[in-house]
């Protein structure tokens, strides 16, 4: 436990400033502490197996850069899951947004498009997809799993048609300049991730929007009877998640220099895994952005260690699976401890 003394847990949503405040959500802090320990443990494994190649400063930046795209998607996913839903379409929407934005830049307005327009387009495409899913779920009463599954398939197909299954190389000078910069030594992608995570934390923990999300996910009927517009809020959650996926699509272009219909494959699973490992309840009603960030970092570090040790992707998948199961088992223990004794 000495490790925890060196690295105090991050300010979780339940952390207390007033002295008299008791820990009202048991497990909240414990869980974040557990995530810190897990991440430190992984770093130890990296240190022992890959030594200086792992401990190198550039390697940490590689991990963060790798984590940033999934990270932005996972922040959006945290909101949807906290609100009692699920979004399986994030990966496909990411791909569609990257294709749409790169098409705009290479064909429709070739040459003289401002880089912000590219980013804005990707975000708008993502938000529009979220709007469609959200309306289907909230007003069409389609189960979230099915509605977003349909969006997942359809968005991928649309991306393939638009791009003609080709990678579209983006050549917008301002775009590259922006994303190649390293303010304060960190790549822009990492900054975007950090800013999205911080904004997400504030939104979830300090605003009425966040509180309504928890209420809708925790007990939709109670939220409705309290006067909350549950359906409109549900739509807003999917729009927010889609927006994050779209932004991640632009980040993906920056990372790979191309827009491609294959971008974001299986990202929905990575995002759900990161959210769940972070401690957000899959049934809704409780979410943690800090936990999600740790979940993303844990999986990114894991991938990095496997790559450094020249181990196969397949072996990595097995370990990932084991971590997800472990996290969910732990979560169930916390859930049963908080005592659901309703008849």
């Amino acid at each position, binding site marked *: 436990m000495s490790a925890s003394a060196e690295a105090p847990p991050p300010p979780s949503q339940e952390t207390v400033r007033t002295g008299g405040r008791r820990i*009202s*959500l048991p497990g909240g802090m414990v869980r974040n502490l557990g995530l810190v320990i897990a991440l430190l443990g992984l770093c130890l494994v990296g240190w022992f197996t890959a030594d200086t190649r792992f401990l190198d400063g550039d390697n940490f930046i590689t991990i963060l850069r790798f984590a940033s795209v999934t990270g932005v998607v996972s922040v959006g996913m945290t909101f949807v899951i906290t609100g009692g839903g699920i979004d399986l379409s994030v990966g496909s929407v990411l791909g569609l947004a990257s294709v749409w934005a790169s098409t705009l830049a290479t064909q429709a307005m070739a040459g003289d498009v401002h880089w912000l327009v590219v980013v804005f387009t990707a975000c708008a495409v993502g938000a529009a997809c979220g709007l469609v899913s959200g309306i289907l779920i909230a007003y069409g009463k389609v189960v979230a799993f099915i509605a977003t599954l349909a969006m997942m398939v359809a968005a991928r197909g649309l991306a393939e048609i638009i791009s003609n299954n080709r990678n579209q190389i983006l050549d917008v000078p301002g775009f590259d300049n922006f994303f190649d910069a390293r303010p304060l030594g960190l790549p822009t992608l990492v900054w975007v991730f950090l800013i999205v995570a911080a904004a997400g934390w504030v939104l979830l923990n300090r605003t*009425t929007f966040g509180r*309504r999300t928890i209420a809708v996910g925790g*007990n939709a009927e*109670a939220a409705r009877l*309290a006067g909350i517009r549950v359906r409109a809020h549900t739509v807003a959650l999917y729009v927010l998640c889609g927006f994050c996926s779209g932004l991640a699509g632009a980040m993906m272009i920056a990372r790979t220099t191309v827009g491609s219909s294959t971008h974001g494959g299986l990202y929905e699973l990575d995002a759900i895994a990161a959210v769940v490992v972070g401690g957000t309840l899959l049934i809704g*009603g409780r979410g943690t952005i800090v936990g999600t960030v740790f979940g993303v970092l844990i999986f990114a570090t894991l991938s990095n260690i496997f790559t450094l040790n020249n181990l196969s992707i397949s072996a990595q998948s097995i370990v990932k699976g084991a971590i997800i199961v472990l996290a969910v088992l732990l979560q169930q223990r916390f859930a049963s401890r908080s005592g659901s004794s309703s008849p």
Partner: protein
Amino acid sequence: MVTGDTFLTMRGTVKNFPGAKALDGVDLDVRTGEVHCVLGQNGAGKSTLIKVLAGAHQPNDGEIHIDDQPVTITSPVAALRLGIATMYQELDVVDGLTVAENIFLGHELSRAGLSNAGAMIARSRELLAQLGHAEISPRLEVGRLSAAGKQVVSMARALSRKARLIVMDEPSAVLDAEEVENLFRVVREVTAAGVAIIYISHRLEEIRQVGDRITVLKNGRTVATGLDVATTSTRELITLMTGRTEEYVFPPRPSVAADAAEVLNVEDLALPGTFEGVSLQIRAGEIVGLAGLVGSGRSEILEAICGVRRPSAGRVLVDGRRLRPGSVPDAVSAGVGLCPEERKSQGLLLDEPLYRNITLSSFARIARGGFLDEHRERRAAMRQITGLELRPADPNRVTRTFSGGNQQKILLGRWLEHGCRVLVLDEPTRGVDVGARAEIYKLIAELAAAGTAILVVSSELPEVLGLSDTIHVVADGRVVHSGPARDIDEHRVLDLVMEGEAA
């Protein structure tokens, strides 16, 4: 009808729940081949009694004998093994399976380890024919049957288990008149074969038709047992069911000022198949009660007033402004707050701290530009905690850990913090222990004194009569009587309600 030896005996059965005694000394004798009716008001302990017999609850005290042998019913499987089958009100059939699969659910016939579908279908056909329903095919999916059909399947399942006692919980509630006749015929056939039936209902005229003897429960106790259906008068039964207790203590209240402004005006509200022609007015400081049985439409009326359901006709006005039908946010912003019947599933965020439940409807006032300040929230919560004497007085405590009475106060606190013109209370003291009841009555009276218009529904007649200034009696979705609460008593209300049911 010839009845035989005693099959089941219960003596001094007690079942405690945290904060409440659900059964407090139940005595019951059931003979083979008889229809034994159990009567009692809501909360008298009928449901708990059923669950004890079904093995779903373990009694804390008392003895149960079957065929003069002491037994303990440790689980639902044990109950079936002892020959006790239960037909719950919400029929426990699986819609996606066939009739035969439902009948043999949990005791499938098998041959060499494989399920023997042919034998099950053949046996199902026999059972259905025995029940007079040969027209139901054993291969039909149960989801396609009517409620009456499902009940027959449920009964066939009990017979297939070779049940010697079938417990029926309000079996007629889901049936129309013709189906009820058929149910009675089946009941008579089954009892003629020596099976005993415990028949739970509060429709007295049914009990007269089908029952042999009656046991009356009140507050978890047997107050009379073995009454002969033929010789016991309705008046006597109602007196046994209602007899006053000391648990209702109402604070004295001033009468409503004659010039008090009308706050809520409901005109001709209707929802087809549920209720129609409902009109009522509440003045500032007045408490109005709706009395009626479960299923009479009273909860639905409340929900329509609060925007939870969208009425097909009529209108609701608060302070003269018409509410948008079917819009909870509009009702809330006009100052209408509903404390729903199911506090846990409809009212509270159980895993969130208390203060978040208090402020949930008051973001417009507490938040600044969409941002919440938890210190302000806790101060608001402390205000309500102090005013309502909530215990323990800890705004950060998880809501689930509060007692039923304090959870009800949390909901009241939410609406007080919001600032309510009309407070609508559905079963305000359900699951609340006796001590806390008096406190809640006092709070309701204080709120009225402060000028809030209050609308109350309760299954407990003494409660709704004791709290209210004005009473509307609801039966079968219609208001059958309106008048000052002091001019009517429980007997009269029950008479009205049962007349309505019979009509």
